[in-house]
């Protein structure tokens, strides 16, 4: 059986002592090669869960283990360095740097990992080609359409072959056709270049592109 890329042990989070917990006692295992969709209504804590998985936030209780490493036991620098090499992000709001070119945006993770030429250039071109935007390599990110920008974000999320890809409502700002293309591309690339992936979405159509669907609600995380 493939090893667990990600494991959640009894994870709990609440925003303030006087408010009900967002979630309590969450358990989850994500295996190598698995692509999971997490659905839930607005405000249920999907993005918060994503932040906890990425080490951008700390849980009130429980553990997050990425390849067996307990994120809750690491300091900020250690989490950041782990995130640098092991996690990729695709955001709803794209979050590319508008003043950089497409190629520069995609290569950011490689720059952080100090990958130098010619490997840097070669991998960037390969990834741009894989997502179908190689001709746009030298264009400024601000000059692209929404669908093109999201492809840039997907390429950036996968160029360093992370262990885990986290996609937070990646098609929230796209038209249906672009959304469908993006979801298909995301699945293909996660399978090809990452250890595992989690897609956060409130759309059933989007969730259907995953191998497994879980629902996050007041009762926890369940099929």
């Amino acid at each position: 059986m493939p090893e667990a890329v990600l494991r959640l042990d009894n994870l709990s989070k609440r925003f303030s002592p006087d408010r009900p917990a967002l979630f309590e006692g969450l358990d989850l295992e994500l295996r190598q090669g698995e692509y999971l969709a997490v659905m839930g209504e607005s405000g249920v804590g999907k993005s918060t869960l994503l932040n906890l998985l990425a080490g951008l936030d700390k849980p009130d209780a429980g553990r997050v283990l990425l390849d067996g490493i307990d994120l809750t036991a690491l300091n900020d620098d250690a989490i950041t360095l782990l995130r640098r090499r092991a996690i990729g992000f695709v955001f709803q709001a794209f979050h590319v740097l508008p003043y950089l070119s497409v190629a520069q945006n995609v290569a950011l993770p490689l720059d952080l990992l100090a990958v130098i030429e010619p490997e840097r250039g070669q991998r960037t071109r390969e990834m741009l080609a894989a997502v179908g935007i190689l001709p746009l390599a030298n264009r400024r990110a601000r000059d692209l359409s929404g669908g093109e920008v999201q492809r840039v974000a997907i390429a950036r999320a996968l160029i360093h072959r992370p262990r885990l890809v986290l996609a937070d409502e990646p098609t929230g700002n796209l038209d249906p056709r672009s959304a469908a293309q993006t979801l298909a591309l995301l699945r293909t690339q996660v399978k090809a270049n990452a250890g595992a992936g989690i897609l956060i979405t409130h759309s059933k159509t989007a969730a259907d592109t995953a191998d497994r669907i879980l629902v996050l609600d007041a009762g926890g995380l369940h099929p």
Partner: protein
Amino acid sequence: MTRKFTSGARAAFSIWRILLLAQLREQPGRLCITVLAIALGVALGAAVFLVNTSALNEFGLATKRLVGESDIVIRGPRDGFAEQLFVKLAEDPRISAASPVLELDVALAGRSNTLKVLGLDLFRAAALQPALAGDIGENLFQLFKPDSIYLSSSAAREFNLKRGDFLQVIVGNSPKALRVLGVLSQTTYPQALGVMDIAAAQWTFNAVGRLNRIDLRLAPGTDVDALRRDFGKSLPVGVLAIAPQVERDRAVSVTLAYRVNLNMLALVALFTGAFLVFSTQSLSVLRRRHSLALLRALGMTRGELRRALLGEGLGLGVAGSLIGVILGAVIAAAVLRFLTGDLGNGQLRAAGASLRAAPLSMIAFFVVGTLVAGIGAWAPARVAAQQPPARALKGGDGDYGEVARLSWQLGVVLLMIGAALAWLPPVHGLPLFGYAAIATLLFGAVLLVPAVTMKVLDLAPRTQRTVVDTAVAQLRENVGLSALSLASIIVSFSLMVAMAIMVYSFRLSFDEWLGKLLPADLQLREPFGNDTAFWSINDQANIEAVPGVSRVEFRRTRQLLLDPARAPVTLIARGANEAETAAELPLLQSAPPPLAANSGSAWISEALQDLYGYRIGDRLALPLAGRMQPFTIAGVWRDYARLSGSVVIARSAYVAATGDQSANEGSIWLNTGVGAGDVEKALRARLGHADALEITTSSALHERSLQIFDRAFTVTYALEAIAVIIGLTGVSFAAGSTALARRAEFGMLRHIGMLRRQVIGMLACEGILTSAFGVLYGLGLGVALSLVLVYVINRQSFNWSIDFAMPAWQLAFLSIALIGAAAVTAIWSGRAALSQDAVRAVREDW
């Protein structure tokens, strides 16, 4: 480990380069202005330093040449001592060489300035100044003639004289012609002076049998300090044994406070430049918070982000400092070429001083400028690194509550420390604690801005007007940005207010002082500081007899050396009696002391009080006519003309002590209806050397003095303007950044039906509220800083007092102008942002 470090450094450099280049592409104008602000601060500091250093070097060299290779200088009052003292000292076995000198500042016909003339025994002087004999050479015996003089090359250039020409000097009331035998080389005496044979000088200047200086070289092995102490006990009254270094340092130390103040002004320029870096970087960080949060999410550590942002600031500093150092050298070279290198002080004239290469100093300024920019960038870098990336990605201004809490506590502590520092005394005559108080109060007040801003915004009531309420809500939500804009206005405006109050107070006090000291219609004076021109009893009678003259008050001024380490004090003998003398002075303190027998009254200036520690009722012994004459201090008066101090006694007391009835200054009251011009012509006709006399109406002198005052403060006025411009630049940056960042918000407001003019009105409202609060805060802080400037820094630097006064109309006008400019800036930035397509504007990323 090494590999890890190398790859880490490479990653950091890569990200730093990306961030900096992106900034250069996106915000070139702002970066240029920030670089220029740093450059300006560094240039001013470097220029002031270079000019002062070059002038001091030149001055020191000139003074060194003046005293030659002597070990001790025996110096007496200007009217000298009996030359028998020279014989006695020359015979002392501890002395290997002695050179008698008659050193006088001689009045010149047709000129208001004087020429230093040295009467030397050239054979003896050559032992201490070998180059002098070489220069004079074969003309040595020609120099023995009573009408012969050698000029230094500076003097020859200044008076446009060459060998064979005549130099007209004034002795008493009569001109005398001296033949120029030749011109000395530049290296012998760099400054402007003349050299005569000592006997010829004594004869020419009516000082037969008198000397006022003896240069001594000691026998090997003689203890210099012990011998000086011995001489101190046995020399006549008023004659002092001084180390040559003290001679050299005297004029330098007099100008120390002036030079330090200039350096402080330059530092103010550098500080405002650094503050611009701070506000630019802070705004840039706020504007890029999404991008920076993304980098953190992608795996950039806090330390890497902090270093990258700090590197941006240092990059600006490097560029600005490089430009500043070069610009500073250019400015310094221009000042030395076209001015005399004294930067307006007048006491450190170093004509012919040239720019001396000071590579180490320039490197130091480069490093300081870069570091200052780095310091300006450090705080925003730290704040950016601390921001939680998850929150910043989502939106929002960051958590400033904690920042405000910590900063207000530190702010209060700094204010208390600043207030305490202001009470401390000067250090070696410099108001160092005063400067520290200014800096501490400024920082403390700026640190309070976030907390005060939050409090004021919390208290702001709803007005039920959409435009105003939306503006307040926006300021409340983006308190970090609001605080930055405010800090920018507050720093620059408070500095401007402080300087404006100080200069206005000083000008008003100076104006009142002039009015008190210039009550007559005409002022009459021989060239200032000269030792040879004066009016005898007959001359005075001639002046009084000029038609149209109602009354004349004659005065005698001369220099007295009370402390060898300090510049001479000016003695002024005036007033027919003590009551009249006291009535003529702008007294600050006075009390009728119980006069001791045989002790007249003296009134000292504030400088004498501060520098020598004298108080009312103290005994003051003045070296006059070879005796220490006792006086009792009866009052302290304000004197803005003499930095080294002055003492006034009744003319009758002076004549009684010295027998000297001559005068060299006078105030003339005219009969009613008589024209000043006619009396001036008649005066010049009656006195022998009319063209050198200074005759001015009191009103003209008053006006000219105020013009000189205004010119002297040109640098301060310029810095006020720079402070305001930098403040407005900071506001403009903030407004521009805000507008760009809020395009989506504006688009949304336009979508829901807010008119374009309403959106602009909202921006104007934000600008007015921010700047009005900043102006009020800045006014309060500026008044506090001005108190330190007036009562501490000014007093401790120059040893005179100023009456505090507020230029209410000027400040009101500037406040309104600043608020208006801030509003215009906000509107202009808003219009630029609103020019974008509203639909496009709601896209989140751009």
